[in-house]
């Protein structure tokens, strides 16, 4: 690994595989699928290798590649990875691989699909390893296009509306974020190199007023992506219409880009503004937790319920980030990872249910555990993981963000426990109605064959293992995040 530009390879690999997908002769779907799985596996293996070579104790960037690129616009070629980004990169490669496996039974437009999947992976991984503002933004936006097509092509009935809404809504946020990045450039060190900008910010060279303005601009971009209440309204629509794989990656990885942005850019570059707004941000996080859970409680559509649960869960991420304490940041990254794992699993499951019952209406789904015991049990498992049951990974992140929130904001953070209770309520209600219930006459009927296929079961296994393992023993994972989180918290002085 040493000597090789590991991160360039990491982000180039999916791109090359994507192009290779396009070059395959049309008509041979099987070959495309094999290539898709091989490609995503290769990326995953490479990620694991990087993870293995990553030295855990060091707080700084590793595998750094830095080069002049386009000096006219102040752009550098700067890649690097640290404890914040590594888990998210891992998440992105893992979920893409699982999505590729899950898509084994895709029948139409296979080539397009896998190309989009690879393109999506380029963006997802790129965002987390880019250390240049422009590269960051480019990867950030690259993600939109394949997702737009995934929703627009394989989506549900209102896919056109949903895809355009998704695109435009998130774009509004990100263009304003782009303005923020430009202001960082203009008022800062006249380069888009995020490391330089962070140094500049920590040296206190941004004026207070400047910091507030830039923070506001960046906030909008990140907030829409996370999504932070009240910028979350694109999420349910996008999720409900998106195909399974789209939902998995949307919830699993795309939402994390917002939280990551706060940690990577806002906090190190704008410590004053971050501190200034930290309470408001935390409050928004708490509101998101309670609000998302409250709205999820009466949803009639299974997928929409899970979508709102994302709003609630990402609220914890926001709370943790806002606290800017070690525990909060640790917890936020942990929670991002967990949410990716668990909600990804839930969306896979919703997809499987929909495929079998042709409905996502909670009222019409009954007796899953009696018809398909394995599916039912896994749904229950995922639900409990999602509602933050201790011993499963969701709890660890929630606890740590809550702890960080308490350290920073005191009792206000405590309000979020209402959200936890409500989360339990809507998941249990769903379980009671759909899974642990006898089938009735008017309930939807499972189309044969009901049993899970290997390509469906396989993606669930690693997700379940992670949910369990990280819940039982999070230390190895925390050891990766901790140095970076400690360094970040030190900037704010918490």
């Amino acid at each position, binding site marked *: 690994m040493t000597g090789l530009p590991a991160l360039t390879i990491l982000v180039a690999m999916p791109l090359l595989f994507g192009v290779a997908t396009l070059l395959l002769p049309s008509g041979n779907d099987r070959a495309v699928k094999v290539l898709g799985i091989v490609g995503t596996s290769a990326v995953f293996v490479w990620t694991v290798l990087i993870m293995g070579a990553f030295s855990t104790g060091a707080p700084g960037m590793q595998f750094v590649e830095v080069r002049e690129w*386009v000096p006219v616009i102040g752009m550098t070629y700067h890649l690097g990875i640290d404890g914040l980004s590594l888990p998210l990169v891992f998440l992105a490669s893992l979920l893409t691989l699982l999505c590729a496996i899950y898509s084994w039974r895709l029948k139409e437009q296979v080539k397009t699909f896998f190309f989009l999947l690879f393109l999506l992976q380029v963006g997802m991984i790129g965002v987390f390893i880019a250390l240049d503002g422009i590269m960051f933004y480019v990867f950030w936006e690259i993600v939109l296009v394949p997702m737009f097509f995934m929703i627009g*092509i394989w989506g549900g009935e209102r896919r056109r509306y949903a895809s355009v809404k998704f695109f*435009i809504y998130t*774009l509004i946020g990100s*263009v304003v974020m782009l303005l923020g990045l430009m202001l960082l450039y203009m008022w800062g060190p006249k380069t888009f190199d995020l490391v330089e900008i962070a140094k500049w910010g920590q040296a206190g060279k941004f004026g207070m007023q400047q910091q507030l303005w830039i923070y506001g601009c960046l906030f909008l971009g990140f907030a829409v992506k996370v999504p932070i209440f009240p910028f979350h309204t694109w999420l349910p629509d996008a999720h409900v219409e998106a195909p399974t794989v789209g939902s998995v990656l949307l919830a699993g990885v795309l939402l994390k880009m917002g939280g990551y942005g706060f940690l990577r850019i806002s906090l190190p570059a704008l410590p004053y503004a971050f501190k200034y707004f930290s309470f408001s941000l935390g409050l928004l996080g708490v509101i998101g937790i309670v609000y998302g859970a409250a709205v999820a409680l009466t949803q009639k559509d299974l997928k929409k319920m899970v979508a709102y649960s994302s709003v609630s869960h990402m609220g914890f991420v926001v709370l943790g980030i806002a606290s800017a304490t070690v525990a909060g940041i640790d917890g936020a990254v942990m929670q991002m990872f967990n949410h990716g794992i668990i909600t990804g699993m839930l969306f896979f499951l919703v997809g499987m249910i929909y495929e079998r019952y042709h409905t996502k209406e909670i009222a019409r789904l009954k007796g899953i555990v009696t018809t398909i015991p394995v599916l039912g049990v896994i749904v229950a498992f995922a639900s409990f993981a999602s509602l933050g049951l201790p011993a499963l990974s969701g709890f660890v992140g929630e606890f740590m963000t809550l702890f960080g929130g308490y350290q920073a904001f005191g009792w206000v953070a405590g309000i979020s426990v209402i959200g936890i209770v409500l989360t339990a309520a809507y998941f249990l209600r769903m379980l009671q109605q759909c899974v642990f219930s006898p089938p009735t006459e008017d309930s939807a009927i499972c189309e044969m064959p009901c049993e899970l296929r290997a390509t469906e079961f396989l993606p669930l296994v690693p997700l379940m293992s992670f949910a369990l393992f990280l819940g039982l023993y999070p230390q190895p994972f925390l050891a990766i995040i901790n140095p970076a989180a400690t360094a970040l918290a030190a900037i704010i002085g918490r």
Partner: protein
Amino acid sequence: MYLNAWLAWSPEIVLTLAWAGMLVCGALWPRTHPYMRHATLAALLIALGLAGLVAANAHSLYGLYFSEAAKLDSVTTFGRLLFGSAGVLVVLASWDVHGEENAVEFFGLFVLSLLGEVVIVSGQNLLMLFLGIELLALPTYALIAIHKTRARAIAAGLKYFLLGMFASVVMLYGMALLYGSLGTISYVHALFPDPSHLSAARLGVLQFAFFFLILGLGFKVTAFPFHFWSPDVYAGGSTQVVAYISTVPKVAIMLAIFRILGPAFSTGYPIAKWFLIAIAVLSMVYGNIVALMQDDVRRMLAYSGVANTGYMLIAIIAGGADSQAALLFFLVVYTFGNLGAFFVVLGMGEDRHITIGDFDGLARRYPVLALAMGCFLFSLAGTPPLAGFFGKFALFKSAVAHGLPLLALVGLVTTVISVGYYLKIASNMYGDLVQRDLPEGRAIERIPVPLRIALVLAVTATLVTGVLGIPLFLGAL
């Protein structure tokens, strides 16, 4: 020196010769008509090659020529290459349409207008600018009107002509006033001097002069209040010509504007600056919002053109070297994106309005065409990693860097609006790729091979500029 001049302007000489040859042959031997397109293409390719050679010998050939009336520099070279390549694409797109009928008129006029554009870009005084504009404009009036079947094309041409002439004359009066108040028409150094050297009366006259000048130039680039002709003409004219006039002339004039307004402009002439800012903002806002409501794709593209003009004006207002680089890059992006989009419309059929609904299910039935259109749309919308993003990014960054963050904000927000109508087409094209619950769109006749080549070239240009071209363009210039 003479030899140098011949060498330096050899591309234009080749084109002029080709033009003359085409006219003579066309008049004498009607059998040569089908070969006019070949001649044009060859001439363009040769001219491009020569332009490249000239650029390679920049150290000995760059400089002022013809009593400081024309300047050969990197901007001129840029113009030559861009106009030439765009010209090649347009010729390919017109290959069958104007292959035999009206061939002499069409290709002759076309070459003439290209020459006009080079004059505009290389010119160093107002007279050259005026001549260039007329040389460009007069052929395009006719080109719009030349159409095999469509009666409306002539009406459109007439409308374009009358309004265009009106704008030119008003601009001409503005030039006269400029001459009167400044005492010179040359902008080799700077047309607008430091205002402290001018008397109050002259400054007063200068205001009128500037207004008239911008009216004339704004008309050609379809800036906001001077754009009214463009939707009508775009919808009425023949598509390949519309593709041409929506891009290349705009590029030429934009470059000219950049040359005219010197460094003193942005600090010394606040009224002029605010005038341009107002025009830019209104163009972006108005163009994008009205485009959102259009159903006819060509009208939509016309309004999107208005909006893009607004974006280009941002660079002009910002001024400075980085803005120039940004502008040049954006112009390339805009040219290929817009040309490509019009070519797709051309490929979908000439006989009637192409509406957004016609794109329903295009991706399923004509995947390559849809892919190309998607490419152009996303580039125009400014989505990374396509070229459009870097173009817009560079523009907005230059605005921020020159202390105009709010202007950049307007640009960014209106970009989002623009995505609305671009995506409407994209989602129509791809909406029923898998689920087929939508009505069938329009059936398409076979797309001629030259047009296909043109499309492929445009796609390549869009992709290559985006992915690889950034350092090339932004770094080198």
